[in-house]
């Protein structure tokens, strides 16, 4: 039978492996329309290869799963952005090729400032401590001076009727 001969030629295996030429693929599609039973033969070959691949499966590292899902999420966010802003196709392609690391927290509870603010705040803090210490020091010094002065020359009593 012609169909049997066709199947035995290994054309389906060649097609499933991705090795068939364009002419062979077209021929196969034509034969599929002519003999729909070819579809079950294609499925059988694919199932055989699936069984082989499952028997030899290699577990990918756990971190890969997160990486894939992160990528697909960013891609979708990016896709929504591009449709929202109606960016050009070229732009979309460029965005797809980039890897984004999203460090922006989701809620608006945080602000981002320049790193020099850290130095500034430390300087202000130290300066305020210096001011506090000197204020205490000068206050105590003033008190001591005051006492000394009182011992040397007691403050004159201001008469009530000095006018």
């Amino acid at each position, binding site marked *: 039978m012609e169909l049997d001969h066709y199947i035995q030629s290994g054309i389906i295996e060649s097609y499933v492996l*991705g090795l068939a030429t364009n002419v062979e693929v077209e021929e196969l599609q034509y034969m599929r329309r002519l003999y729909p039973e070819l579809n079950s033969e294609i499925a059988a070959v694919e199932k055989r290869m699936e069984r082989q691949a499952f028997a030899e*499966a290699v577990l990918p590292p756990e971190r890969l799963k997160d990486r894939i899902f992160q990528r697909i999420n960013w891609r979708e966010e990016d896709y929504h952005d591009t449709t929202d802003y109606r960016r050009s196709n070229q732009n979309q392609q460029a965005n797809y090729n980039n890897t984004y690391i999203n460090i922006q927290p989701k809620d608006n509870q945080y602000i981002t400032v320049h790193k020099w603010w850290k130095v500034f705040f430390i300087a202000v803090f130290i300066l305020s401590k210096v001011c506090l210490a000197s204020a205490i020091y000068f206050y105590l010094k003033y008190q001591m001076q005051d006492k000394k002065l009182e011992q040397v020359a007691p403050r004159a009593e201001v008469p009530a009727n000095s006018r």
Partner: protein
Amino acid sequence: MGQAAVHIDEHLLIERLIADDPGARELLYDYYGPALFSLILQVVPDNKKAEDILTTVFVRIYSEVYTYKQSGNATLFGWMMRLTREIALSEGCHTDGEIVGGVTIQGQHSLQRFTNTLPQEKQKIFYLCYFKGLPKEAIARMMGVEAEMIAGQMKEIMVAFRNFLRN
């Protein structure tokens, strides 16, 4: 890893994947990821590169799953397998043109084992065709023979592969 015991309703899974269902995506990765990873490792033996390729493969699968029905494949795995090899060939850098003598296929995967069962010349043709993705005309030029001769040899190889798969 042994054969997966869980049966997956392919039709339902595809419908859910088209609807961007995250659960379906995870199921697809957990179920088919290891099998596809082993296919990539056959073409690109470098683990690091193979991981990058698997990432691209799944991102492409999720975003192009709606094209599966028009692809001409009869099963979801068949479609994913072809896409995987296509991406592995285009992303895994190759050193084409360096294979002058015989080829040595390492590894114990079925396709590698199959290649080793072939006679020397056919081994080389199948290696260049499947593992390097070269068209028959390019292989003919490399080996200094007519393209028809390569096409004829490939037909014989595919008959041998059919018998190999059935056993």
